């Protein structure tokens, strides 16, 4: 019996069309737009101006606080302008737009592909390096990685958990990364273990990636303290709280961080980025992006520079299919529908999913029949039907009482609802309002 998390969960059709597709390097585009807010926390501050020459890997925007991060140029060329562009939501956000000229890398970056296993840096130096390299959680949450590696005083961490679950349907970027860069991930894990001062690391992989489980288990034998945990396929296992529960059976109390139960979770993609930053001195400016969908002619995994327009990726995967209804940044459960395909790839883009018109349309909303399916699938043990009602009726104190803030927005409730009710839409609205009320109360 494979392990999984204890409450709720759903199992959507996996549709991993791009599984086993080798990682291809996408050609550098003619122009990139690098948004200055690609992470959770304060936006970065641009340090280049119009007309500046930049090299690949050069710092172009610096961190503006502890929970913030550096941004490096993904290309070489000339800064065209620093201006507002439309982001994925159709709102204006500041970005650095660079016209590409050649592909000249910063000379400090080691571009040799050899594996470097010796970890020479000390614990503090690793955390500093990760922070400087602008590494954020690459699973999609984009939380700055160095913050998670800095264990707050008074707390202890005894285990590192690597998130290789990839529970979102369609996406395969982490899977393919493990198959091709397994050794590097192992060294990256060792680096993270050193930074956190722990002797145990668990890599959680869902059982629908049997080849990755075998491959990683073989590699793990060479490294001390790393174990592979095959997990039952169940969404949202990739949620931090669910993954910790599945791997080590500890539940994070409401409103607390993983460190409360002595665990730190990092994504495998992040781990690979940490390896590159620490061993090769390469900051984070490219990532693996899955481009997939039922009607996509060539589902692929691309190594893509940040700032590349999504349309370039789609073209490389065979162009936008005729029946396109929705283009989603990320997976189908938690991804964000894009309002335009000219928006840039960011550090958090794990995939581009193109959905046909037919599947993309939501069903007609019917009255709640109180079937309690949303309650039984909620991985946080909440009552989504009730949270939707109180959010709709603006009863915020009741919403807070019912722990609306515990919601991880996994979408299992809306996915399941037989009456096609937009449960999560309203819960998200309520979370925003209640969050504001709670913050203003604490002031």
């Amino acid at each position, binding site marked *: 019996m494979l392990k999984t998390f204890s409450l709720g969960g759903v199992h959507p059709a996996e549709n991993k069309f791009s599984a086993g597709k080798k990682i291809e390097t996408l050609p550098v585009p003619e122009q990139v737009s690098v948004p200055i807010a690609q992470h959770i926390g304060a936006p970065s501050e641009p340090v280049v101006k119009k007309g500046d020459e930049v090299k690949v890997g050069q710092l172009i925007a610096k961190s503006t606080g502890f929970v913030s991060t550096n941004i490096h140029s993904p290309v070489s060329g000339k800064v065209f302008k620093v201006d507002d562009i439309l982001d994925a939501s159709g709102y204006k956000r500041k970005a650095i737009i660079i016209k590409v000229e050649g592909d000249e890398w910063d000379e400090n970056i080691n571009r040799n592909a050899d594996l470097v296993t010796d970890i020479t840096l000390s614990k503090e130096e690793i955390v500093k390096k990760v922070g400087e390299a602008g590494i954020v959680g690459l699973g999609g949450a984009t939380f700055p990685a160095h913050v998670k590696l800095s264990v707050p005083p008074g707390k202890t961490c005894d285990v590192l958990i690597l998130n290789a679950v990839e529970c979102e349907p369609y996406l395969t970027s982490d899977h393919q990364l493990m198959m091709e860069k397994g050794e590097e991930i192992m060294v990256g894990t060792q680096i993270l273990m050193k930074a956190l001062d722990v002797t145990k690391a668990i890599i959680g992989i869902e059982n629908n990636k049997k080849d990755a489980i075998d491959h990683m288990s073989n590699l793990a034998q060479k490294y001390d303290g790393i174990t592979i945990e095959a997990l039952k396929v169940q969404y949202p296992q990739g949620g931090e709280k669910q993954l910790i529960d599945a791997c080590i059976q500890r539940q994070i109390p409401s409103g607390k961080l993983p460190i409360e139960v002595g665990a730190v979770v990092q994504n495998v993609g992040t781990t690979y980025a940490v390896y590159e930053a620490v061993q090769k001195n390469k900051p984070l400016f490219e990532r693996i992006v899955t481009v997939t969908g039922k009607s996509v002619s060539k589902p692929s995994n691309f190594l893509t520079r940040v700032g590349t327009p999504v349309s370039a990726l789609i073209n490389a995967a065979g162009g936008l299919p005729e029946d396109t209804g929705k283009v989603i940044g990320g997976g189908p459960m938690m991804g964000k*529908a894009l*309002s335009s395909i000219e928006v840039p790839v960011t550090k958090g883009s794990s995939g581009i999913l193109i959905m046909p018109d037919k599947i993309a*349309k939501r069903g007609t909303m019917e009255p709640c029949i109180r079937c309690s399916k949303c309650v039984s699938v909620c991985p946080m043990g909440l009552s989504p039907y009730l949270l939707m009602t109180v959010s709709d009726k603006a009863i915020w104190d009741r919403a807070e009482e019912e722990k609306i803030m515990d919601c991880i927005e996994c979408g299992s409730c809306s996915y399941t609802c037989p009456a096609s009710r937009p449960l999560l*839409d*309203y819960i998200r609205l309520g979370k925003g309002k209640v969050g504001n009320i709670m913050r203003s109360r604490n002031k």
Partner: protein
Amino acid sequence: MNVVLITIISLGVLGTLAAIILYFVAQKFKVFEDPRIDQVEEVLPAANCGGCGFPGCRAFAEAMVKSDDISDLNCPVGGAETMSAAAGILGKEVAAAAPTVAVVRCNGTCDNRPKVTNYDGATSCTIASSLYGGDTGCSDGCYGLGECVDACNFDAMYMDEKTGLPVIIEDNCVSCGACVDACPKDIIELRKKGPKSRRIFVSCVNKDKGAPAKKACSVACISCKKCQKACPFEAITIENNLAYIHDDKCKLCRKCVSECPTNAIHELNFPPKKPKVEKVVPENAE
């Protein structure tokens, strides 16, 4: 007979006892309340809409009785008449606030503002606005999902099905501000009603520069500043690429209206101009 008598007597005694106890308890726990609060509440419209900023009419009446200076208190529903009646009861002075009315500052109809995406989420402007900028190229304009209409307690708004925009029924609008609060885009504004309900305002809230604004919507303010130059009273300011007419300075001369190259400035309830330039002002209020 005996049974009836005993019943009447015992119940009578019980009733009298209870009455006496209740009387003393009522005396003991009596809360003094200014009788003028009731009187003031009497003249208020009892709509409990919250337009005055207080939770309901009684709270407003209390505030009127308690504060010495009531010049900053105003019941938008009752208007000057109610306020002077209430002030008369209290013997206080009240400044006559000019009546205001809600205006919708977006004219992005389906024709003027082509759709670039389809929205397929919950029917709520707040949810849509937290998701994205809207289904047109304008990220400041109206979503057309009608949260303002739901918020209106006075049947003063409806969604025009042809344009997809909310319309204010001027006669019903009491300017309580519920729609203003409901709109996540701050499109609706309370403006001075003006003499004979005549008003001029910029019907656009788009903060983009001229070219993208014009591309997104044919009747957008493109911040060309022509209206500002035309205005003899300095009533127009331009901020964030958007013109705004200050209703306290505007003298309703209508010079700006004909200047505007995109018809973004609307005039309401004016008699038709002598036919000089044929202008199609898209349908609006009423």
